[in-house]
Every structure is written in structure tokens, then in C-alpha cells.
């Protein structure tokens, strides 16, 4: 493992131990605030790491990957609300649903490449948002209210869910980076015709890659839904979330295992500061950051050392 990857593992372990510290310190610190920021950063990390499997290793930019965030969130919310499926199970089914949908549409969608593919996935995201807003069982534009979670570790449950998801996503990226399975994806990224001619069934492996991305993104949507306790089409199919996860990914370094994690934490930290210091113009400042990152860190934070 590279230095940056080891540091990431250490960082994730520290995050796992953090609640003990928070409990020991007791009432004096803003526990809720810290957990909220870290949970957001972990969520963004998972989304960026998921996208990294597709864009970084397979070369397909799914700019509308948030479509699967919505599918996961809505699937788990509806299951839990209407059929009283337990939290864990409904979140898992949300992920499964997202990946099944992705696997089915991938052979068609992934005939497109680069910008065209990015736009097609964005269209999917926006179209799904409109559909959900106009359907009865999804609650239309009113959205769905979910009960506030009470029970086992109620203060920390979502923090740990997001942390587990980030660890899982990190592991998936590590696996793709080092495995024979990953070779197939990288071959597709480098040259699809050559990949086919050397025996890689590109349609199949593109579909795998797309549905891995969708699975993680869908799980993320499910956890988010129960965390926020209210979902509507605007928040679950939000194009700004797509932008944010791409900025995190670009900032961190596309196609590296550790990059997306650091990119997400860096962006979350910066945008938190920008939010509180420059409330009026935070969009401008974030935009500037993107431009600077593209100009001076074309390979992202993880690419600086190289």
C-alpha cells in the first residue's frame, strides 16, 4: 500500500474511535455538530469513491450518478414507510434496487462515451426526479416523512453507517486497483476495442462497474433518507450533489484509491468554512476553488507527490 493509502486507513480507524473520545469529553463539546460535518464528509467520500470505480478505473463519467442516490433513498423510504421493513434491511434493498436498475440499463447507456454518457446519465437523474415528483406512491412533490430513529446507539448510528459505507467503498476501490477484476476495467478505460480484442467482454464489465457504482450510491441514498428523515424529489435528485461529488473526486485525484476520500474531506472542510465566512458568495468561492484545482492540481491532491 502506498503512503497515502496507509494514511487513509489510519484516518478511517481514527474516525471509528472518535465517538469514544466524544463520550469521554462529555457535554462541553458540540458533539452533534462534529458528527454532522463528519457524516456529510463520509457521505461525500462514499459517493466520490463510488464514482471513482466508474470514472477513475473504467473511464466513464456518470455525471448523473445521483439518480441512484435517489433510487436507493426512495426505495428504502417506501419499503420502511409502507411495509415496515426494518432500517438495515430497507437500506440494503435500496442499494440492491439501484444496482439492479444500473445493471439493466448499462448495456444501452454505456454505448455512449465521455460527454455523451455524462449527459445521458444526467438526463436519467433529472427524468427520475420528475417522475418521482409526479407519482402517487412516492409522495409526489410533498416527499416522504420518515420517523426519527430511536434505539440502539441513536446518537452515533448514522455516523457509523456512513463510516462503514466509506470503509466499504474504500475497500472496493482498493480491490479494483489491485485485482484481476480491476484489470478488465482499466483495459476498458485505456482502450475499449483493444480490451475486447484481448478477451475482455466489455459490455459485461462495464455493467459490473456501473452497478457497483450504483450499489454504493444507492446505499448512500438510503442512509441519507433515514438520517435527514425527510426526502423529496428536489433533495434526492439534486444536480448540485452531482457537482459536489465530482469536485471532491477531481480535487482528490481521479483513479487513485485514497484521492476521493481526501478530496471529499477537504471539500467538506473548505465549504463549511466558506459557508460560515462568506455566506453570500459561497458559490463563487467554491467555483473559484474548482478552477484553481483544475489549473494547479490537474491530477488532484493524490497526484501532487507524483
Amino acid at each position: 500500500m502506498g503512503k497515502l493509502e496507509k494514511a487513509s486507513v489510519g484516518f478511517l480507524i481514527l474516525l471509528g474511535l472518535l465517538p469514544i473520545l466524544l463520550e469521554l469529553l462529555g457535554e462541553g463539546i458540540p458533539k452533534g455538530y462534529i458528527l454532522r460535518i463528519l457524516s456529510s464528509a463520509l457521505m461525500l467520500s462514499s459517493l466520490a469513491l463510488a464514482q471513482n470505480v466508474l470514472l477513475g478505473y473504467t473511464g466513464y463519467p456518470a455525471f448523473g450518478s445521483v439518480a441512484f442516490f435517489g433510487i436507493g433513498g426512495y426505495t428504502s423510504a417506501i419499503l420502511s414507510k409502507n411495509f415496515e421493513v426494518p432500517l438495515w434491511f430497507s437500506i440494503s434493498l435500496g442499494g440492491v434496487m439501484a444496482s439492479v436498475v444500473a445493471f439493466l440499463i448499462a448495456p444501452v447507456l454505456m454505448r455512449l462515451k465521455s460527454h455523451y454518457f455524462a449527459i445521458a446519465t444526467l438526463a436519467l437523474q433529472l427524468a427520475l426526479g420528475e417522475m418521482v415528483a409526479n407519482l402517487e406512491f412516492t409522495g409526489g412533490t410533498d416527499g416522504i416523512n420518515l420517523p426519527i430513529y430511536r434505539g440502539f446507539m441513536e446518537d452515533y448510528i448514522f455516523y457509523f453507517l456512513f463510516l462503514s459505507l466509506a470503509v466499504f467503498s474504500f475497500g472496493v476501490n482498493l480491490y479494483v486497483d489491485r485485482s484481476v477484476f480491476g484489470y478488465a476495467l482499466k483495459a476498458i478505460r485505456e482502450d475499449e476495442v483493444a480490451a475486447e480484442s484481448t478477451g475482455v467482454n466489455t459490455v459485461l464489465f462495464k455493467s459490473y462497474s456501473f452497478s457497483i457504482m450504483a450499489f454504493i450510491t444507492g446505499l448512500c441514498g438510503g442512509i441519507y433518507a433515514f438520517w435527514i428523515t425527510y426526502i423529496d424529489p428536489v433533495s434526492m435528485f439534486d444536480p448540485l450533489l452531482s457537482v459536489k461529488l465530482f469536485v471532491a473526486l477531481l480535487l482528490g485525484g481521479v483513479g487513485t484509491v485514497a484521492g476521493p476520500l481526501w478530496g471529499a474531506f477537504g471539500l467538506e472542510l473548505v465549504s463549511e468554512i466558506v459557508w460560515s465566512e462568506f455566506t453570500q458568495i459561497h458559490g463563487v468561492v467554491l467555483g473559484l476553488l474548482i478552477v484553481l484545482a483544475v489549473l494547479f492540481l490537474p491530477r488532484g491532491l493524490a497526484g501532487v507527490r507524483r
Partner: protein
Amino acid sequence: MSILEVRDIHKSFGGNRVLKGVSFSVKEGEIVGIVGPNGSGKTTLMNIINGVIRQDKGSILLMGKDISSLRPSGRAKLGMGRTFQITRLFSNLTVLENVLIPLHYGSPLPATEETAIEIIEAVGLSHKIRDRAGSLSLAQRKRLELARAIALKPKVLLLDEVFAGLNPVSIREIVELLLKLNREKGITLILVEHVLKALFKLTRRVLVLSEGRLIFEGSPEGMVKDPEVIKAYLGERYLKDESA
């Protein structure tokens, strides 16, 4: 028995009829050259045999089995390797990884580093094993493409202008390598080629493609004397240059 059979292949791109019924067959262990002027459909024919492009009509048989409906990856697994006119490597991966991918995904050979290194040695790239494929020179890139194709343990190897852009020394070395592959491993070779001198060292049988049709089939000696081939491809000057 013929190892590869091409039957009545037709292909149009929009209104442009590129191939107008091409048929030929290749025997096991044979070396066949396909030549013809630019735009005569040679590369399209290669792409159809390997499955990158689908024909409008006709069929391709590999060892008597119709492979027309298979994807290129399926054909690769049955023993069809190819190289490309403009090299298509996995540029950001190492030379070793470039060879490991076909070993893992399309080859009956054991997918180990040892096997890969052996193949890389055979094409003369042992000193570049850990280098990025994108950093190689043109001649090295062509060798690596060859290694990648050999890694499939192919029965038939399609070579699309493998000599183009190479210096005489590299050409001679690759000719020798190809002859060795053909003799020792019994690999059938089909070459699309403009470098006739190199081609004629390899093959006893040439097909000439012109405007989507085969206009000649026979020995190199017969080819250079064939009036139709001279008119469509070689030009009057070729004869003068050769006799001079």
C-alpha cells in the same frame, strides 16, 4: 481443413459500399497477405473478421464454426488474436500488465507473471517490462501489440500493417519473429500490408483487394505481373523500379 473461412462478406457505411462480396479461406499454418490501395476495404475486412465491426451479409467461420454472432472477446477466446494499424495499447498500464490482461481474460495459458515475462522476452521487450506502455517507441509499441496477441495463444493472428513506420532493422526482426511463430507454434498469419518486400519474405499467397472486391489471388510473383493488380494498386512505376 481451412482454419478460417470468409464467406461472401458485404459491408456498407451509409451509401458507401466498402466490401462487395469478399470470400476466401485460409488453411491451418498458412501465411496469407492481403494488399490493395488505400480505401479498398482491407482494414474493414480485418475488423469484420475480428468482430469489431459487424458485416451486413455473409459469415465468418473459425475452424468450421460460424463465429459471426460472437463479440471480439468471444473470438479472442477461441484463438483469434490481432494487432491494429494504429497501435491500441493500454497506455497507462505497464508492459507487463498489457500482456497479463489477455492472459487473464482470453487465454488458455496460465495467467502468471512468468508466462507474461516469457512472451515479453520473445518479442524482445524484456528491458521494458515495468515501463508504461505509453512511453514506448513506435517499434516497441508494435512489438508489445504482438506480445499481447501472442498471449491469447492464438490459432489465427491478424496483423494490420505491422511493418508500417518501422525501419529496415525492426522490419527484419519482426519478419523473423513472425516466421518463428508460424513454424514453431503453428500460428496461422493473415497480414494486411503495404510493405511488399517484407510481405513477400513471409508469404506464398497474396490476395489483392480493390474497391471492395478480390481482384487477385495467388503467388507474389503472379501478383506483380497481373495487369489488373498493376492498374489498381502497384502502378506502372512499380515494374520499372523493380527491374531497375
